[in-house]
């Protein structure tokens, strides 16, 4: 169970904020870019034959003897795109970053459903059986009664199998020792002769977050609110984020990091193995190097912040040891994502 029932009832009082107006597909409760039926006056326009006579402003006709149509703001639904990064790196941490992302996505999705918005969930980097590399998508849901389907879908998400996959959804504790126990799958550290860049058949390709985002932005029909949950540990994610911005999505980027990624508890002579690509780096870790790591991380986050500021995205960084309900109820409200 991703969310507690008591917590769900608290979520019902919240609503997602959109900083832009989007045209929806069905009637809803959001102001749309379209003109339609509502109580809120928007504009006048000249009458053309064929217009509904009920919408003619007769008071104006009486004064000016010309026909004008009274236009009202349409209220339509908003599409909320929940994007989850399900790459293998998300399986790290205790609790795993993926679990944390699932909880946040469930909460936000529930809020959207109760607010009569359309919710789509897409797992980027996840791979359904047999279709390696393609995103898994939950078709658009609407209405509170669809919440269970949403939760079900989120619950089933798992990072792709392959290199250094530490027991699926189980929190990968004691990561270091387990790499060698995975037999015959991926690199496992047993066969050093395979160069890291030549892909074996079994493991999934590393998540190319940038490409996945780019594809998503290009293929999605309805724009709207995008909430992207990821650890963003991908060198190409900038391009993907720019593609989202180009289609005028209202993007909220929730950057999830594990405490061990912010403050690595590593020491000694190590060979670091990338859990996605299998790339290795030999390092002798000392305080000096850890200090440089922290600086590199801060620099990386600074680049992201700059990018988001430039394209009008909402950038929220958190670590998984911040309780997720605090993130939802406090941080997201403070940052104007929720009301």
């Amino acid at each position: 169970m991703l969310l507690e029932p008591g917590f769900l009832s608290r979520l019902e009082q919240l609503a997602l904020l959109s900083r832009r107006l989007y045209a929806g597909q069905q009637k809803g409760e959001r102001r749309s870019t379209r003109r339609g039926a509502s109580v809120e006056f928007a504009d006048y326009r000249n009458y053309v034959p064929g217009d509904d006579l009920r919408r003619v402003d007769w008071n104006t006709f009486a004064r000016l003897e010309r026909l004008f149509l009274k236009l009202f703001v349409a209220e339509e639904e908003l599409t909320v795109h929940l994007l989850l990064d399900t790459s293998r790196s998300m399986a790290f941490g205790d609790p795993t970053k993926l679990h944390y992302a699932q909880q946040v996505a469930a909460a936000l999705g529930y809020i959207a459903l109760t607010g009569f918005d359309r919710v789509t969930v897409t797992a980027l980097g996840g791979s359904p059986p047999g279709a390696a590399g393609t995103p898994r998508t939950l078709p658009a849901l609407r209405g509170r009664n669809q919440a269970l389907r949403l939760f079900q879908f989120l619950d089933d998400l798992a990072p792709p199998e392959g290199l250094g996959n530490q027991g699926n959804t189980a929190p990968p504790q004691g990561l270091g020792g387990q790499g060698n126990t995975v037999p015959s799958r991926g690199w496992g550290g047993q066969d050093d002769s395979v160069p890291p860049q030549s892909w074996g058949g079994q493991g999934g390709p590393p998540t190319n977050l940038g490409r996945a985002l780019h594809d998503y932005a290009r293929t999605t029909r309805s724009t709207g609110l995008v909430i992207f949950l990821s650890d963003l540990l991908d060198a190409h994610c900038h391009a993907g984020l720019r593609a989202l911005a180009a289609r005028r999505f209202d993007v909220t980027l929730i950057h999830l990091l594990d405490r061990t990624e912010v403050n690595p508890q590593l020491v000694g002579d190590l060979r670091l193995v990338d859990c996605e690509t299998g790339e290795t780096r030999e390092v002798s870790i000392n305080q000096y190097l850890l200090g440089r790591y922290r600086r590199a991380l801060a620099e990386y986050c600074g680049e992201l912040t700059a990018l988001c500021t430039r394209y009008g995205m909402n950038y929220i960084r958190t670590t998984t040891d911040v309780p997720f309900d605090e993130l939802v109820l406090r941080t997201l409200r403070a940052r104007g994502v929720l009301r």
Partner: protein
Amino acid sequence: MSAFNPLALLWLLVAVPAILLLYLLKRRRRDQVVSSVLLWQRLVQDVQADTPFQKLRRNLLLLLQLLLVLLLAAALARPFLRVRALGGKNMAILIDASASMRATDVPGSRFEEARRLALRMVDGMGRGDAALVILVAGQARALCPLTSDRNVLRRALERMRPTDTATNPREAILLAASLLAQRRDAQIFLLSDGAFAALDGAEGAGIPLGSARLRFVRIGHRGDNVGLTALDVRRSLGGTFDYQAFAQVRNFSEQRRRLTLELYREDSLIDARELTLSPGETHGEVFGIQGSASDLLRARLDVADDLAADNQAALVLQPRRQVNVLLVTAGNLFLEKALNVDPRVSLAKTAPGAAAATAAPRYDLVVLDGKAPERLPPRGRYLFIGTGGAAAPVAITGRTEHPSFLDWDRRHPVTRFLDLSSVQIARALVARPLPWGQALAQSEAGPLLVAGEKEGLRSLYIGFDLTESDLPLRVAFPILLANAIDWLMGSDAGTASLQARTGDVVPTEVPAGVRRLTVVHPDGSRHALAVEQSPLFFAATEQAGIYRFEGRRKEGPFTTRLAVNLLNEAESDIRPRDQVRLGSASIAAVDAHSQRVPREVWRWLALVGLGVMALEWFAYHRRL
């Protein structure tokens, strides 16, 4: 290059395989799966430029460690280089500063050569080596304490000056041995030409060297020298000349030498003799001279040889002086005759009694035969014969029969040249010397001859009546009397000349009333002396030549001269010796230029090892 402890290199056999084994056993890097190496990659990129260098870097540690082990093992082996030098851990540098070292057969002089050599030894001293410098002249003088400070040693060496004295190596070696006692690896270097009286026999055997090793570093390479070995003068008893001068010349060189012996009175040449001397020949010349007291007589060899110090000698003629002697006796023919024979003596005679005591202060010498007055002036010169008295150097305790001379001091001025062995004595006094008395001849019952000297008083005691012995009939008697008068009168006795040897302590008579003297040394330097007593004991006779004493008294200025000469055959014989004898052992000369001393280099190896270790540490911690 060799090593003191080559076995230490065996450590390599242990340490190198150990390091290699550790490298073989070294665990590979632990694999650590991380979510992404993206960030690590960012910070590693600039450091991890290229992999081949990275691999080399890993091997670099191994190479550095092997190098370190090699250096440490090499340091433990204590390798050394043989350096061309004389030296040791603890050295005493004995520098001969005697007259023979002024020979100019080496550039500068032998003394300068010794100084250069010693400076080189000091420069070559290793860390922790210590040395001291002793100047060997008439007396040994330590110029600096045992020190590792090379500047102190250099200053001491640069300060020292040569002298014209004889060499006293025994005292210097003793001093060095005592200063080096308890020191490990101690060596005494005697930098000398070996031109000194041999230290064989008892004198050399008695030198305790302790653990120190004596090495003789020979200086000089030839012995081309002709020198004056004696100059003396005596008064002529008759004839046309006032004085007779005797000069002895010796050729120490290997060739025949022709030379001129010149004799000057003050600055005028009065005689010259052409001499031809074959190698090793000694030749004496006698000159008759007219002269007066206080004249300076100077002999000079006109010859070009290596040592100039012995080509001159001088003396100051002394005036003849009367000695007024009061003989207090009841009648003693032998004594009277013997005193009258001496040309210096003008004799007065008186019977024992109170009159003798009152008359005594007017005479230079009072001879008391058999009976002495109760009271005598406390200052004066007295000869007690068969009696004691107020001024005698003994206390009479009794009488004895038939004593005989057992032993006597053969070097004391009073008893030298005497043969007292068969003197028969019927009766003698038994006496105990007073603290200021010195027994000169002993019998079974006690001293028979005692000399004593204290403030203004000189007295000699003969412990038997001359008429009760056969001494007056023996040759020894006039000699004893002449010696006694000489000694009792001191320099007043009127020796014909005044001269001293370099290094001697010379008693110089100073007229009453002179409080301060200025000494003008042969080299022209002047020193002030405070006069506290007469005679003044003057010890600064290190240079040969004429010393002038200038002072002032009521009557006017006062000047006296002192001639100081080398006149030493051992010093004039400047041939460098191949060995010196020390007791029964003989120490061969070492050539200063062929000696090599080991100089340890482990400190440098250890230092480089430290550097390699720092480099290794640096390489290890910068590695990524």
